[in-house]
């Protein structure tokens, strides 16, 4: 699996994604935001961080980077794009995913492990999970409060495009389990084609027992399995 890890000025989880891709046997390459051409890659990943310092709004300036034209074309052609945290914000700003990520309802940066319920297992990204499985994955963001209008939310629900939801220990999507005020406890969504996933929690930070959780590993493994030409 050849992966383009797109780096913007201010990205800071690029290295973490790179290492996670390597860990599942993938072949990652950093692609600087001013470079062009993503044709040779099997997947594109937009890392977390503070592209352009989150000035104006998370992802609002990064979406104007030259490489984003290629990312949009890549996604529209049905190939896999994963955006994590700031990457999710950029995907929304670029119109590849609906809705927006606004300031956490606490008005504070929030950083701790949360519980996620896997809502769909028939995507390229989530085939390695069980439906309803509860994952422990860290969040670290100040603008992760997912918002969309009623019609969009209804569509997301009806079309089963909500992939991860914040839940409590018993798997309930409660207000207490919601770390940022996201509507419908949304933590991650896919586009209509199911090939673009945006999520606020960091699966790349949950790939080693030593660091507290391996619940993110199945996501990268599923991608590697689907996208490696001679997958074992």
């Amino acid at each position, binding site marked *: 699996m050849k992966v383009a890890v797109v780096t913007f*000025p*201010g990205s*800071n*989880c690029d*290295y*973490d994604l790179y*290492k*996670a891709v390597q860990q599942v046997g993938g072949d990652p390459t950093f692609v*600087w935001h001013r470079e062009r051409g993503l044709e040779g890659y099997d997947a594109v990943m937009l890392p*977390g*961080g*503070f592209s*352009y*310092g*989150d*000035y104006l709004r998370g992802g609002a300036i990064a979406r104007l980077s030259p490489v984003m034209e290629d990312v949009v074309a890549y996604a529209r052609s049905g190939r896999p794009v994963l955006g994590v945290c700031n990457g999710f914000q950029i995907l929304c700003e670029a119109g590849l995913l609906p809705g927006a990520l606004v300031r956490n309802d606490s008005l*504070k*940066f*929030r*950083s*701790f492990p949360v519980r996620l319920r896997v809502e769909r297992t028939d995507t390229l990204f989530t085939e390695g999970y069980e439906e309803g499985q509860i994952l422990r994955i*860290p969040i*670290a963001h*100040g603008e992760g409060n997912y918002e969309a209008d009623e019609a969009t939310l209804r569509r997301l629900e009806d079309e089963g495009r909500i992939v991860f939801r914040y839940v409590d220990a018993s798997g309930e999507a409660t207000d207490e389990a919601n770390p940022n005020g996201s509507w419908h406890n949304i933590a991650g969504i896919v586009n209509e084609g199911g090939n673009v996933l945006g999520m606020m929690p*960091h699966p*790349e*930070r949950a*790939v*080693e027992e*030593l*660091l507290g959780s391996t619940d993110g590993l199945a996501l990268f493994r599923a991608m590697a399995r689907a996208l490696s030409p001679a997958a074992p």
Partner: protein
Amino acid sequence: MSAPDSTHAVPVAPRPGDPDITAELVDEHGLSPKEYERIQRIMGREPTFTELGVFSAMWSEHCGYKNSKRLLSTLPTKAPWVIQGPGENAGVIDIGDGYALAFKIESHNHPSAVEPYQGAATGVGGILRDIFTMGARPIAVLDSLRFGDLDSGRVRYLFSGVVEGIGDYGNCVGIPNIGGEVQFDRGYEGNPIVNAMCLGLMKKEELITAVAEGAGRPLMAVGARTGRDGIHGATFASEELSEDSDESSRPQVQVGDPFTEKLLLEASLELIASGAISAIQDMGAAGITSSASEMAGRGGSGVDLEMADVPVREPGMTPYEILLSESQERMLVVAEEGREDEVHRILEKWELEAAVIGQVTDHGRFRILENGEVVADIPALPLTEGCPTYERPGEESEEVRGLREMDLSEHLIPRGDLVKSFLLVLGSPNVASKRWIHDQYDTTVRTSTVVPPGGDAGVVRIRGTRRAVAATTDCNGRYVYLEPGTGARAAVAEAARNLVCTGALPTAITNNLNFGNPLKPHIYHQFRESILGMKEACQVFETPVTGGNVSFYNETDGRAIYPTPVIGMVGVVEDVDHITPQGFQEPDHRIVLLGENTAELGGSEYLYVTADLVAGPPPRVDLLAERDLQRAVLSMVHKGLLASAHDCSEGGLACCLAESALKGVEGGLGISVRLEDALPPVAVLFGEAQGRIVVSCAPDDERAVLEVAESHGVPARSIGTVRDADHRFSVTLPDATLEVPLARLSETYEGALPALMDSPTPSSD
């Protein structure tokens, strides 16, 4: 001193519009008449206004260490593993497997007292730059904070602003926060302490130092433009604050831009790796002046700097302003001759600016030009090394002696219900959970944090090796206040104990010495005794001091903070398998107390919360016993005997046990503990006797744990058993019992800070 070499001196005419040098102007620049005379001797003439400004900054306490240097020079600084000791941007140690660790702590107390958000944010920015200018990539930050009591609205404003500032800056740059400590006490009411520490990792051969050598090499300003912010910040940091410091001092506080910092970090590391530069230094305190003169001083060379070539934010800035600006996110770089274009290309990639602003010379002078006209011409070495240093008279204050000698025996009698006292101590913001803070910091970015904030020390693994590094900051200002020597020894001992509890070998120290006005004898006494105590402890633990920072004049309206010599200590974990958690791991595990309980209560949190007292002698520190204890625990760790280890400190044994219980797996485990000491229960539960660690182990390992302790001459005894999550927290003494449901304990411990910060009761101020 001998008259300086004036061979290369050139005539300097005053700039039009410069004020006359009067005694008042000299005084406003923080220089004494004697110091001014010395400047005249060095110059062989009257300095110009610009030159006076340069001297003022370099001879400020902040840059010149004039009241601390002599004592600091007595601290141990050498060990086979020390690669770079004091005098550089940061200390560097060898941590094995070809890696080196750069680390340093620095204060931003004064700016944070005036503008907490920017003050704290730029403190983080500055310390990151000190690390990456050594060629190391920052891998972790810690913060040591002190504030007044949280019942004051002003203190809550300062506290929340500082936490947000630290968080926003570090989060944006993407450096995990792995720990630190915070203490709330009225002793810090007007003067918060904000010390930021950073660790950086590099291959040993990647080390670069800030030495300007090789005449003709271009000097380049890199990063952000120079503006009018922070002018004379270094001199400002060397004065006491007064009530009106608040408004009038704001222009001296710098404004941070973490986004630019992140770009500068990447650009600097790329520059260093390219070989296109030979030296790099942050333009920190005293900006261009200190970076250029210090680099020249270290190389025994000189510099010519053209002010008209410095990229500025606004037109019309004078050389005086440009030289003394403390605009953030700027670097001074010595490029290799002919490779300037390469520097430009790297900077352009990162969307930053670089400009040649001068060159290294062999004339040994710090020479400033403005459109070709020389406006300052100072011999470089006397500027950086010639700052007069002082030893001051020191004498303990009567007030402190009185407090220390106060009879505390009435406080050993419980005040009503012991459980109530217990919850009061556990729920004090000094003991209670600091999650309210840590949840605002990114602790897991860079995916290497093994022990996040909240443990005894933070631990970060080194990718590609079995190793990890641990770091902690410690200092109980109350102890230092009551008896400075003992307090300083306790700070070093506690830092080392914290590292050992996580499984690390204490290795080296960076210190941040926060004190009041050293010209006052009782303050100088605190300073001197602290340094002597620190020195003794560093020798015993074999932890040399590789650098640090001195912050004097932490006074508001004549009232000084508690003397607070913060110890930032780093340690090496040889194998990640040695990393030991703080919380109990399994029901039926045995709980073993290492070290001895005493009847001491002086300086304790118990006294503060139950009697509003900071008094009595601080707990004694037996350095050799501490060393034996720490060696014993490391030996247990290496033998794989321990399930958990936790240092016993503020709040005493009761709070230590509560923390290990609450941090037990899956939300906490109950315990039943029996303590047979023939001592007053208050002292056993809440006394802060030093040299104690609570460990737990599997029942089969209990014997071995006790044997290792015995072989090291460390008192040890089994005091109880870990229970399941439904069991209570239960501690039994000969004539008293603490029985508390775990949920209640958790509510108290976790709920304290949120209750104070998120729904505070209105206060009078």
